[in-house]
């Protein structure tokens, strides 16, 4: 499996390297990922290191450590504004502003071209400020992180659901997934009881704001009960009667149902009632709504692969169906997944930007490209609020579309 993944990576890279535009897309992706990774070191209102009260301090690194929970602010530094503090020998990030920091001297949308009330060119707002005096460039740098995190993680979740379902549906079709009747009953009962104890009995946890442990634990219960149920079922009732699971029809019906609901409308109406808006919940909901695309791709590929000779050979050699699916067919079906993934990431980023543009479901303090675009609507003359974040969105979406195109074209 690991070898196959490595091989596919090599194939992907060689595919991407074929055209100049795709190579540029690859470089662009690296660039955006770097910005996302180091966002707090690129735009921050704290200096890297400085001399404060005669002592060397590293406020930015300490802030990161505090966020990670491994350090604490000394009492005299907890609430100071580093830009106004009396510092000597201070070294600042390239953009010496945080996305939510309000510059009182340059509020009411300062244009990047106008005179700005700043100490020196070092503190200039290169892309202007919004109506409250927040730096646009800092917002865009931090927005990269949120866009990529939501795009990539939600698609990761989507592929965790879509790949197994799609490959089962494609590989076994409606006729080939046979399990013992006793095991099927065990599985069914296990799923029923597992969701009962995993979700219903543990329901009071949800009332105590422990959503994450509630859902994760619930899923664990269900998985455990399913495994246990099918194992016990097979053990206690050793019949050889088999049932056929019409897995293909099942999966395709679910996909059709999800596709027949306008996605953004559904997303909006779910996100709007989530008690505490968080990026985490958006990732979960997006992942749950967007797995059909991936499942379809995998299914289509599996339909072709299952009739290939090496799969037949594996069957003849006595490999169990699950083994030949997992070890032989799936690694070779993963290629198209990358196509679906990169288009999916582009779509998820667009959804994130749309949500923050509308101001629904995103935490209020999250810096996002869409939020900047929303501010552009309230100050119609601030062209820099509309143009720069839009370019960032456009470039990111184009990069992922280009990569998807590169991966999808053979030869």
């Amino acid at each position, binding site marked *: 499996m690991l070898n196959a993944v490595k091989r596919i990576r090599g194939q992907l890279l060689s595919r991407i390297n074929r055209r100049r535009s795709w190579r540029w897309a690859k470089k662009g992706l690296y660039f955006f990922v770097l910005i996302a990774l180091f966002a707090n070191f690129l735009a921050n209102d704290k200096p890297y290191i400085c001399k404060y009260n005669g002592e060397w301090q590293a406020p930015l690194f300490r802030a990161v450590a505090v966020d990670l929970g491994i350090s604490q602010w000394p009492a005299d530094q907890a609430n100071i504004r580093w830009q106004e503090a009396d510092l000597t020998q201070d070294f600042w990030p390239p953009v010496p502003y945080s996305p939510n920091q309000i510059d009182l001297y340059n509020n009411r949308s300062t244009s990047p071209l106008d005179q700005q009330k700043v100490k020196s060119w070092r503190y200039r707002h290169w892309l202007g400020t919004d109506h409250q005096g927040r730096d646009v460039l800092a917002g865009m740098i931090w927005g990269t992180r949120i866009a990529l995190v939501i795009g990539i993680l939600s698609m990761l979740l989507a592929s965790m659901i879509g790949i197994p379902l799609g490959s089962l549906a494609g590989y076994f079709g*409606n*006729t080939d997934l046979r399990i013992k009747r006793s095991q099927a009953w065990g599985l069914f009962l296990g799923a029923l*009881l597992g969701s*009962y*104890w995993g979700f*219903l*009995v543990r*329901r*009071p946890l949800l*009332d105590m704001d422990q959503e994450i442990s509630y859902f994760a634990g619930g899923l664990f219960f269900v998985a455990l009960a399913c495994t246990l149920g099918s194992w016990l079922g097979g053990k206690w009732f050793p019949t050889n009667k088999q049932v056929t699971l019409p897995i293909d029809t099942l999966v395709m*019906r679910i996909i*059709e*149902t999800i*596709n*027949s*609901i*306008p*996605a*953004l*409308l*559904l997303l*909006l*109406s*779910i996100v*709007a*009632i989530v*008690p505490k808006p968080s990026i985490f919940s958006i990732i979960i909901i997006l992942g749950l709504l967007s797995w059909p695309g991936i499942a379809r791709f995998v299914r289509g590929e599996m339909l072709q692969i299952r009739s290939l000779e090496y799969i037949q050979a594996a069957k003849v050699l006595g490999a169990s169906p699950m083994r030949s699916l997992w070890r032989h067919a799936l690694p070779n079906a993963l290629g198209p997944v990358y196509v679906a993934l990169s288009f999916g990431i*582009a779509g998820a980023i*667009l959804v994130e*930007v*749309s949500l923050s*543009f*509308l101001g*629904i479901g995103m935490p209020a303090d999250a810096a996002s490209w869409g939020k900047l*675009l929303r501010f*552009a*609507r309230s100050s*119609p*003359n601030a*062209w820099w609020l*509309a*143009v720069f974040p*839009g370019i960032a*969105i*456009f470039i990111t*979406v*184009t990069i992922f*579309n*280009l990569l998807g*195109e590169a991966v999808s074209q053979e030869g």
Partner: protein
Amino acid sequence: MLRFTLKRFALLIPTLLVVSLLAFGLNQCTPGDPIEQRLPPPQDGVQSYEDYLNNYLRLAKEEGLDLPFFYFGITTAAYPDTLHRILPLADQTNVRRLIGQFPNNWSLTQAYFRQLRALRIQFNRTDLSYHSDALIEARRLLENMGLQYQPQAITTSLNALQEQVGQDSTLSALGGKQVSLLKENFTAMETVSYSWDRYLPVFRWNGWGNQYHHWLRKIVRGDLGVSTVTSQDVAEKIGTAISWTLRLNLSAILIAYLLAIPLGVYAALKAGTGFERRLNIALFFLYALPSFWVATLLSQFLTNPEWLNLFPSMGVGEISPDASWLEGLGVRVHHFFLPVFCMVYGTLAYVTRQVRASMVQILQSDFIRTAKAKGLSERQVLWKHAFPNALFPLITMFGSLLPRAIAGAIIIEQIFNIPGVGLLTINSIFSKDWPIVYALLLLTSILTITGILLADLLYAWADPRVQLNQQNQEAHA
């Protein structure tokens, strides 16, 4: 064909069921209390807790809120089968939480809850001719206790309550006994012995008298309820909204198709030339251009007196009643130009690429070579033989374009203030007008399903191979 149609309709039923369950379920999860919003303000500004409860119960009964949610329910044995009858909703939630904390004996939990309610009624009477700080404090504590379920929190409140009552002799006479009774109830509930059988599943059949059934029946009759904010009829509101959205979407899709088909065919004819490559690149970037960004830019630069004031920025325009239809059309076109433009270019890029791909494929197929070989002119080959066959994918594409277009129009509508489904949804979310949000979700889903169904049927009618394939699949299965 008839069999295919019937089968296709039969497949609709589970989808519709799931969608309706989803809309209903989400509606149940909304924060806030729909009855609370509709309660009339108290006369003279004061209202006893008892009156409030009575008013609430009366309204809730009218709305059917005291019914169980669904035809059946599966709960743990700790929950009573009458939980849905406990109203107001805030109390119901808290009783559910109390049971989660003290699952072992329902009757003791019930006794505690009843005693708490009795005390709240007793202390909130309006005919009390007596006021003191202790009474106000006791009322506050009792109100808090209505929301508390964790043992430590309840104990703290109980102790504070006893202290307040103990300080004031009049208050003590009014409800001292009941406070100590409440404390006894609480201790009994807390110390009752553990019983494992409370964690067993219980299946309950609720019959037809449930909220989902009533909700569904109302919707089938066309009664979508009343807006909780403006008390308007939801159906009427949604009707106008959907008509605007459909007008916007259908004109956008129509324009996109009208432009895309010739463009795609032309590109297929020129396959491999520099023109085709350039067109491809242009279409690619057009497709990647986020429409709401373009919309923001256009509304910022073309509807703004500071830059260029070419188009109106708001709404759909007003047509005076004595205007001729041409003038009316002019107003609409003027207002619709920018939003439709924003919706067209993405669809245009997508459809053009599809037409080009399917046309290129068809032009390479055998029957085209045959047609050419028997001496038909280029034109005849292209329009009589190749083109109709290349059109089939366009029909199915319509089915997938419609939901995308409706969703994509949400933000466009918001930016250009078109009073369609998107704007209505967003405004209703902001004003927490949940009946509208979920009715819209349901209706747009039904609209989408109908669109897909029509496209499928049309496709099967135009291309009989589709039906055959389906039958073949069945034969193999």
